[in-house]
């Protein structure tokens, strides 16, 4: 009896499997039925597919980076082109000793809840930040004075010549004092920005409406609906189906390439401020040898790989940093050139030869092997690492790939538990890249000490203490040249900020600052 049942169930399951298969195939064929609606009065409303949820109302903590700049302003801001620009402070001056900063605040500005913006509100915010996320940035603050409603004087314990730039990161946003409770918790997202947050359904959507009283002029768009869609492919499909109007190309490698060819859509891109880097571990063989590092740098043809494999999401490396840092960059950077002959010659000079004919070089009995660690959920890096592995095999180096999750990758970088490691550059939202050397990678007291030397240290220290703008630029360029001469890293690509949208959206440009990619919505309109 049991056997009979079993046979029946077998046919049943075959039938179900067939039905499922057909459904699967059909669902693939289905095209979006609802497309452009008939012409009505054009509503200035956008639906945006966004990877990240709002997370919280607190811009100083974990509120999504990408939308803070729509709701909040800072005292000093970085504009769409990555230039320092006035935010809620109109002008500011630094005393000659760099210890007193006087800010003239914008007048007639109110928060979304009607609370006036003035020096008291600024003081409340700075005090709140000094006990929270702004602890390090504001550590030097001695006192905050408010002689009149539109003047803010900040006295520092020691000179900080980049104090104005230090106020630009998104976590330094100014929040309505009424929205901060006694415990320092932000109870509502109330800022002065171009859009007001009107509703938020966790993990589903959040909606913004325009701020009619925005000090730089109200935006043309009246309503923004952000639909939370973590998966890039789902966002792309929603855009193709017309369910959303706009998405960011962030982490959407293949989707962007496909959407680009869709006649109903257009893409805009701009080089962002961050780059992808590959560090060598200079403290361990074989990359303690400059020649081996140079050989690797010469063996990888980034000018071919990046456009072919990463397409619009990145540009091949042109300098030490992205061009966003314009004036601080060395005008004639010595970027490694793709040259296989030179690469092989360097390895031979370093004493590596293939004595057993297996295609992998050896030196005193050790094979030329290396591990390459990268973030396992980073599609671009994964693809490039596989391509690097192939390229390096060509010069006789065997590379083992080590995919890691984000936390493990960071730990490996901190503990120098790697030989080669590909990571995204720390993206300080700061127009001056000094922090990258001082606390990032290149000073002996920095977090990751990728490469350090007494000369480099002294230059970096000098930069931290320098006030003269010309001298600062010179020091920046010297530091970059000194680092590049030693090849402790390879700049892999400069990441583009990409927006994909319906053709009827005009004047929408991505900003250079990755964290404020949607800031251009302030100018955009639907035609």
């Amino acid at each position, binding site marked *: 009896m049991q056997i009979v049942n079993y046979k029946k169930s077998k046919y049943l399951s075959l039938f179900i499997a067939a039905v499922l298969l057909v459904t699967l195939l059909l669902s693939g064929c289905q095209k979006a039925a609802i497309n452009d609606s008939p012409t009505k009065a054009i509503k200035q409303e956008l639906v945006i597919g966004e990877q990240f949820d709002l997370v919280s109302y607190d811009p100083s903590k974990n509120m999504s980076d990408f939308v803070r700049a729509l709701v909040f302003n800072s005292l000093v801001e970085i504009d769409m082109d990555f230039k320092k620009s006035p935010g809620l402070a109109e002008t500011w001056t630094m005393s000659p000793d760099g210890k007193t900063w006087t800010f003239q605040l914008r007048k007639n500005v109110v928060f979304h809840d009607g609370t006036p913006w003035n020096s008291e509100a600024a003081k409340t915010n700075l005090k709140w930040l000094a006990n929270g996320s702004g602890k390090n940035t504001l550590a030097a603050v001695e006192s905050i004075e408010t002689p009149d409603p539109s003047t803010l004087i900040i006295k520092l314990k020691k000179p900080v010549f980049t104090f104005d730039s230090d106020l630009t990161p998104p976590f330094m946003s100014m929040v309505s004092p009424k929205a901060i409770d006694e415990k320092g918790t932000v109870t509502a997202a109330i800022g002065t920005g171009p859009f007001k947050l009107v509703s938020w359904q966790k993990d589903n959507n959040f909606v913004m409406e325009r701020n009619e009283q925005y000090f730089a002029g109200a935006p043309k768009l009246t309503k923004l609906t952000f639909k939370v869609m973590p998966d890039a492919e789902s966002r792309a499909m929603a855009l193709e189906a017309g369910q959303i109007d706009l998405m960011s190309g962030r982490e959407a490698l293949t*989707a962007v390439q*496909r959407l680009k060819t869709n006649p109903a859509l257009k893409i805009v891109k701009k080089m962002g401020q961050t780059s992808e880097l590959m560090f060598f571990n200079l403290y361990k063989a074989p990359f303690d040898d400059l020649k081996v590092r140079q050989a690797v740098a010469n063996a990888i043809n980034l000018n071919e*790989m990046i456009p072919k494999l990463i397409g619009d999401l990145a540009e091949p490396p042109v300098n030490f940093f992205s061009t966003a840092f314009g004036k601080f960059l060395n005008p004639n950077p010595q970027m490694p050139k793709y040259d296989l002959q030179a690469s092989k010659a360097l390895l031979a000079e370093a004493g590596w030869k293939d004595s057993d004919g297996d295609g992998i070089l050896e030196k005193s009995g050790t094979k030329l092997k290396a591990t390459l660690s990268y973030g*396992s959920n980073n599609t671009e890096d994964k693809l490039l690492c596989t391509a690097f592995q192939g*390229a390096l095999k060509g010069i006789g180096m065997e590379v083992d*790939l*080590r995919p890691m999750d984000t936390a493990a990758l960071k730990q490996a970088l901190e503990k120098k538990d790697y030989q080669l490691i590909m990571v995204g550059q720390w993206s300080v939202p700061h127009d001056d890249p000094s922090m990258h050397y001082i606390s990032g990678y290149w000073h002996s007291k920095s977090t990751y000490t990728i490469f350090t030397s007494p000369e480099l240290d002294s230059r970096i220290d000098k930069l931290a203490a320098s006030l003269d703008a010309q001298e600062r630029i010179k020091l920046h360029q010297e530091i970059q040249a000194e680092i590049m001469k030693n090849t402790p890293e390879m700049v892999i690509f400069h990441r583009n900020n990409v927006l994909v949208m319906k053709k009827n959206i005009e004047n929408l440009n991505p900003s250079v600052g990755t964290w404020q990619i949607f800031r251009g919505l302030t100018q955009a309109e639907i035609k």
Partner: protein
Amino acid sequence: MSRKLWRKPMILIGCLILLFYMVVACLAPALVPNNPDEIHLDSLFLPADATYPLGTDFLGRCSYSRLIMASRHTLGAALLIEGIVLVVGVTIGGLAGYFKGWLDKVIISIIDILLAFPGIILALVIAGMLGPGMKNLIIAVSAVHWIGYARIVRNMVISVKEKEFVTAAVSLGSNHPQIIFKHILPNILPFILVYATLNLGLLILNIAGLSFLGLGVQPPTAEWGAMLNEARPYFRDYPALMLLPGAAILVIGLAFQLIGEGLRDILSPRASQLGLEKRILAELEE
């Protein structure tokens, strides 16, 4: 028995498919037209042509060569793991069932604890702790799959040990090894075989599954599960990159299922003859 075997079309089809895979895996290096790992950046996503019988993938590698070479890694790993779990599982299960007592209690509690976790999750945890790589994948999958063998073998040994012919052998003065190898093992071996065949299909799925999650072989090595994972972002534009390795896994899984089920149908009467309880047969189905 053997004539019966070939009269079952299920088994025949399964065996033919399996034979085909085995031949392909053995002859793989001779069958591939291109180096499966070689990257050609100037020929990404090419359609099928004379040089690349199934086109190229997202790094310009020959899809056909990769598909063929992958058979070695997937099947090789599956057979290796099968060997490991067969030895470990049968030994542990056999000892527990034969000697019973405290040994059985300890072993059965360990098995029960491990069975409380879904197999793939346990393998995932172990592979996650050990880190990605083929060796670690083999350890992780083996650590999960011996449990099934141990439990089934233990139950079968307990049933068979109570049969008259075993009692007879004991009274004739046979020692433990004689009883185990001459009387018990030959009787349960066919059932272990069925279980092993069904399990092989599952093993291949597990290997591919873990590789799909990035815990198995590492690039550039081709493996069906890893190929599926790598091709995932390109599915909308180049579905063949995912469908081909997917089909390869599906068909070999089907082959093992057909063989295993066919064998079980044949063995069913024998099981009742031996007085093996129905639940053992039911367990084979799991």
